[in-house]
């Protein structure tokens, strides 16, 4: 990462506003009764945008060095791997049939 941090405070306020608006939007959508099966995807999709904004701006991934990016992405990769194997196992047991 560059020394010292060069992110302008304006970026923080911008990120704050984006995440706050998405928070209100996400909660508002929980009162909607006609979204059907898309509901969880929409809620988590919004959460992913919020988290991406948080990590890139507030956690200074923007402007971070390669090792920091590699570390962050490796964490994401191993969490994804854990989900992939475990959820695949659960979804193929056909538990509901019993």
């Amino acid at each position: 990462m560059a020394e010292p941090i060069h992110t302008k405070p304006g970026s923080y306020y911008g990120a704050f506003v984006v995440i706050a608006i998405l928070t209100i939007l996400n909660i508002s959508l929980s009162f909607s009764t006609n979204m059907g099966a898309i509901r969880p995807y929409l809620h988590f999709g919004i959460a992913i945008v919020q988290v991406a904004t948080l990590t890139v701006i507030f956690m200074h991934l923007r402007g971070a060095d390669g090792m920091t990016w590699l570390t962050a992405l490796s964490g994401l990769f191993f969490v994804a791997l854990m989900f992939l194997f475990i959820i695949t196992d659960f979804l193929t047991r056909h538990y509901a049939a019993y």
Partner: protein
Amino acid sequence: MSSHAASHGHPSVLAHHFDTIEQQRSTMRLGMWMFLVTEALFFGGAFCAYAANRVWYPRDFEAGSSQLNVFIAGINSLLLLTSSLTITLAIHAAQEGKKSKLFWLLTVTILLAVSFLGMKAYEYYSDYEEALVPGLRFDESKFMPATLPSPDAPTINQINPDRVKMFFMFYYIMTGLHVLHMIVGIGVMVWLWLKAYRGEIHEQKFLLIEITSLYWHFVDLVWLFIVPALYLAGIHH
């Protein structure tokens, strides 16, 4: 600072085993990121277990989620988000040597975090009052078909109160772990606050704030996923 470092003419914050202050700071940042990866895997395990059970019992989990207080969750989200902003601004205050501004930004951050915990405590109390605590006080009749808000729903007879209890156990364990992490974060911030009060955090020591802020943002990150997973799983009225 070690006397060894001083004898080599290093800046006062440079530990003797680093060549430059930039190298030391990069290493400290990387160390915290490594720690956060282990934390991501820790919480990832809890979210994974939750996801597996929600896939199996979607209606039971949605019925439990509908009973949670989404307004408190929303207010808490904004409290935590604001604390993320103030601790980030505190990094800049420390870099610029504005000790008074740093002190007040840390004060506000801690107050916002404590407010979150206060709201959470009130929410847990409300959950108890509404008999939503399995093993302690749980009203199964809330989840019987006749008392649900939409008795004509085609899948209503598939709701099993025992599975709803499981949802609430996930709710208490996941939010409880999050609260535990918040308490640790507040403890570290109080330590920084005391150092700032004594004027011990100067321009060269801004990284203390930055490293702590990384942890604090991660706590915020986990909360941003807890809200859709637990609070927004069901429809609210």
